[in-house]
């Protein structure tokens, strides 16, 4: 029921000229429809009630984006974005951002996002640190020969050194990973890994016809990293990381 007064959940923005494929149901089981303005089409659902069951709606949200992105370029909107009706969709999103959204749709057309994430093998990492850092190795020796109570501050210092070494390696490995993909992507976003043993988390903007060729640098990097870092290579995704205003075109940006 197209209720121009009620709240609408916004999934993303596509070009109105292209007919985005819409799934039957989106969040809260509501149908998915379009709000058009100035050549832009916002993908929305009407919300009956004021609450959403979060986890379920993440899945529904993804299904809508996935279906639409399969047929056309979609600029995804952040999860859980609700506007106060169709009028608001125009007044707060499509109209004020018309130029930027149009330009984004143009520059992202035919492009997808590929992700390469690296995770440390903890044991290999720690061994390497002990082996390659004399200060760590020496302190480890010292700590092992003293009773725990006496070595409290030494242990803190040891852990601190190890923590610093991990940080240094992370920086170095991020650089190495970025270098491996130079020239293979139109744009790159490097995220801070959010997990404890994350080494790097990279998002690449690649045109669809270059996706197959992208596998070569991924494999090369994997071999160069050996058993220190395990790679995960994911995609293609809608260009989630590339709709951000602050991002510099062409240069890797640290998100």
């Amino acid at each position, binding site marked *: 029921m197209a209720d121009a007064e009620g709240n609408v959940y916004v999934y993303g923005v596509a070009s109105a000229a292209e007919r985005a494929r819409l799934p039957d149901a989106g969040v809260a089981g509501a149908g998915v429809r379009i709000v058009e303005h100035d050549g832009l089409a916002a993908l929305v659902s009407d919300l009956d009630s*004021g609450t959403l069951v*979060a*986890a379920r709606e993440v899945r529904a949200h993804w299904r809508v984006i996935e279906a639409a992105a399969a047929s056309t370029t979609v600029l995804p909107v952040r999860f*859980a*974005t609700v506007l106060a009706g169709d009028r608001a969709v125009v007044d707060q999103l499509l109209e004020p951002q018309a130029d930027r959204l149009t330009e984004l749709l143009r520059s992202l057309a035919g492009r997808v996002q590929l992700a390469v994430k690296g995770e440390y093998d903890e044991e290999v990492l720690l061994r390497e640190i002990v082996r390659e850092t004399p200060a760590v190795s020496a302190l480890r020796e010292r700590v092992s020969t003293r009773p*725990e109570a006496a070595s*409290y501050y030494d242990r803190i210092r040891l852990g601190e050194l190890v923590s610093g070494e991990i940080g240094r390696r992370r920086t170095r490995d991020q650089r190495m990973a970025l270098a491996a993909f130079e020239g293979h992507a139109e744009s790159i976003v490097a995220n801070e890994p959010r*997990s404890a*043993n994350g080494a790097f988390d990279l998002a690449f903007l690649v045109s669809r016809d270059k996706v197959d060729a992208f596998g070569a640098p991924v494999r090369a990097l994997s071999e160069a990293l050996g058993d220190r870092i395990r790679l995960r290579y994911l995609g293609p995704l809608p260009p989630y990381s590339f709709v951000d205003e602050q991002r510099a075109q062409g240069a890797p940006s640290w998100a």
Partner: protein
Amino acid sequence: MGLITGLLTLPLAPVRGTVWLAERIQEQAEREYYDESAILAGLREIDEARAAGDVDGPELDEVEDALIERLLEIRRLAGEVPDGRIG
């Protein structure tokens, strides 16, 4: 070494007592609770289980929902996700 054993072997500095201990337990609980790598690993397991057709159904959904909820909770506490009522 388990958490409790680990805590008990730490030397007690002058002012430490049950409050300090409780805080360390709290930290540990938080660290585990908020460690995203565990949550994401769990979600990946579920994806794989579904893909392999091993397990399915509402139980799996329930676990998945709970894991997603934790991710949202982390972000909510960090102010990264909207939280409030409509209107």
